[in-house]
């Protein structure tokens, strides 16, 4: 199937918000926040969109059928790194290399920016994704090195900040 991969722009936020809402099974993701946080002078993230030609559009008329969100991070061991926050392809378009093409684009952009590491997280029950990523040459840092992701938010964060 013919498809194209390109950098996301402000007009894509509506479709990115749509796909985030579906993929994360959450209440509607805010398009306005995406526009403000991703497309202002100092963006907090960058996006890539996968698009198909009109003749392959979905029943609802969508041609933007996949996306990846990423941002630059820093490894105290290796220096510049890139983190892929989201990678998603609509179910009816999977199995055609689109996910791999999106990830490949993030890797290319990361390397061009001087990064030598690409990180992301995967849920342990998501066997098909785990197998796919392992087949592409990455390794499971949590399983191999025992590294756990921890977070402090909401009341716990406020409590920590108190004098």
């Amino acid at each position, binding site marked *: 199937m013919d498809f194209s991969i390109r950098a996301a722009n402000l007009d894509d936020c509506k479709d990115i918000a749509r796909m985030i809402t579906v993929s994360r099974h959450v209440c509607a993701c805010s398009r306005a926040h995406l526009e403000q946080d991703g497309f202002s002078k100092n963006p907090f*993230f960058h996006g890539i969109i996968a698009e198909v030609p009109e003749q392959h559009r979905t029943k609802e008329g969508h041609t933007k059928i996949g996306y990846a969100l990423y941002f630059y*991070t820093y490894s105290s061991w290796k220096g510049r790194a890139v983190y892929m926050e989201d990678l998603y392809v609509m179910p009816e378009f999977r199995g055609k290399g689109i996910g791999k093409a999106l990830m490949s684009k993030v890797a290319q952009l990361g390397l061009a920016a001087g990064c030598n590491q*690409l*990180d992301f997280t995967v849920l342990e029950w998501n066997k098909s994704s785990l197998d796919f990523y392992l087949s592409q*040459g990455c390794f499971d840092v949590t399983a191999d090195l025992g590294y756990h992701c921890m977070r402090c938010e909401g009341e716990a964060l406020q409590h920590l900040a108190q004098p």
Partner: protein
Amino acid sequence: MEYKLRKAEPKDVSDILRLVKELAKYEAMEHQVALTEKELLEDGFGDTPLYHCILAEVQGEQSGEDPKVIGFAMYYFTYDPWSGKQLHLEDFFVMEEYRGHGIGSEILKQLSDLAMKTRCHGMQFIVAEDNEPSISFYKRRGAEDLSTAEGWRLFRFTENSLYKMAASTEE
């Protein structure tokens, strides 16, 4: 114990690298540190810093001696499209002989304060599962282990596999 917390400056890169290596050694990963002072300088103190550091400093032992950097935190900002900005704590370390004086707690308090002021939804970090003292330290302060609680696993492409991924073509 008297100490001072301050933002890192370009002159601090050798101390930052020293403490990065000390923390890596504590994790039995010293051989993994490839970062150089030159990279720390370019990446932390250019037009667009890729990381930030808070340093903990004590007075020199002899009069006339320079202050000594004895602890640090390296952090940067990340993004979750559903909840917003997060502060990611990359490294956090106080030299062994200076622990137990509240320096680590004070660094974490300053970071939390900064996270709130910069409208971050949370503060996140990676901890090795066998690092019990650190896990207890964080859990006592309300942190949640997302790997255990929600099943999140960190995956990584290192340099060689990253090149292969970048070079792969559409099927």
